[in-house]
């Protein structure tokens, strides 16, 4: 089958989840107890909102990830043709990797790879 049929898998997934949820709403009981609808916080009424500015430790990781992920995108086509191109490709990737490696080393030494 061709890749258009990905739509099919998408639809099958939607049908599976949607159908089950729909089915469940028909047969499952429903209660009116308002306490039940509270978000879980170990049995204590929640204080404050969960959606506040939250110190995410992976901001820097996300940036480094971006660099490396783009790199992976470039690497795959290289990997495919590596066999045919030979030495030239190898030298090029050496240069590419040394730049990347230096970047990683720089981030490492700067302490960017530290979860705060």
């Amino acid at each position: 089958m061709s890749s258009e049929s990905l739509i099919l898998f998408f639809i099958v997934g939607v049908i599976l989840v949607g159908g089950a949820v729909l089915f469940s709403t028909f047969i499952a009981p429903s209660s009116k107890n308002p306490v039940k609808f509270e978000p879980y916080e170990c049995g204590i009424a929640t204080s404050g909102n969960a959606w506040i500015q939250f110190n995410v430790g992976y901001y820097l990781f996300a940036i480094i990830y971006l660099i490396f992920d783009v790199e992976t995108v470039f690497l795959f086509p290289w990997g495919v043709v590596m066999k045919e191109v030979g030495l030239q490709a190898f030298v090029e990737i050496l240069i590419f990797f040394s730049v990347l490696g230096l970047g990683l080393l720089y981030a490492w030494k700067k302490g960017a790879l530290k979860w705060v």
Partner: protein
Amino acid sequence: MSFIYDFSSATQAIDQWLKANLSPTGAFVAELALVGLTILLAYAVIGLYLVYAERKVCAFMQNRVGPNRVGKWGLLQTMADLIKLLMKELIPIRKSDKLLFNVAPYLVIIASFLGIAAIPFAKGLHAIDFNIGVFYIMAVSSIGVIGILLAGWSSNSKYSLIGAMRSGAQVVSYELSVGLALLSVVIFSGSMQLSTIVESQANGWWILKGHLPAMISFVIFLIASTAEINRGPFDLAEAESELTAGFHTEYSGIRFAFFFLAEYMNMFIVAAMAATVFLGGWMPFHLGNLEAFNRVMDFIPPVVWFFGKTIFIIYLIMWFKWTFPRLRIDQLLTLEWKYLLPLNLLNTVVIAFLVLMGWYFK
């Protein structure tokens, strides 16, 4: 010999039969329905029995018997659980983001569906054979994390949010190692098409043909993919001893079941990928020029080979989970950025060198 288990002629025959007997649109629709049903069935069966397998495996490791009441050896236990979860109330959390809260399970399930579409179960038993198969799998596997993030964020629970944040950082990081580990085989085989990669292993699996570097790649792939599917010892997103249930704390009933199911399906996809790329997929085990031995191996159907390898890797992943304590979030990232990634880069260079010099079994 191997042609006797070739499914491509069978699928083509069905295709031709449908086209001959129905109008072109009708044939197309019928084909879609057939494939959809098959996949749905396979998905459900695999998912449910992976849950069962996990329970049994962990039970045996922990000196227990595991489920053994529903059906013979408890085989129907997960079915019973599914029915129970179906009949459970779907609790709408007050002040949650209703739309995203409801959408999140769809995302994780669809991601796993899309993933399973590209896996070659046997020759010809392959829903879609992309020419960029490896790349495609990597791409769809990261859709799931969006579901997890949405689930955590939309439920307006602090535990969920922390779980989701952890999951985000974790998946983002380990994606790299998964990609680089797969790249090593792409370099060896010179193709991203999964069927081609499998074909290229007809005379030996890449993990064996590629010497030590391929093995290192395999190990890194195992570790990184275990982390990417949020399984122990990397299950920080759920971390039941810290965050009670992490990102799906607020989910109940069948919606929770889908997160649960998606986790197991992701495990299956990852294991299937490892089997396909490193262990030769549905290819039988061949040893050099030992004709007799190879012949015997050929008699085992490719589906059995494929599922055997996949189950072996799933067992490994379960074994990890039930042995190790959980990592902490900063250690998790240290492991990726300071150990796996540099090792992986180095390993890729070594592999490129091996390929350049032709120092591997062709």
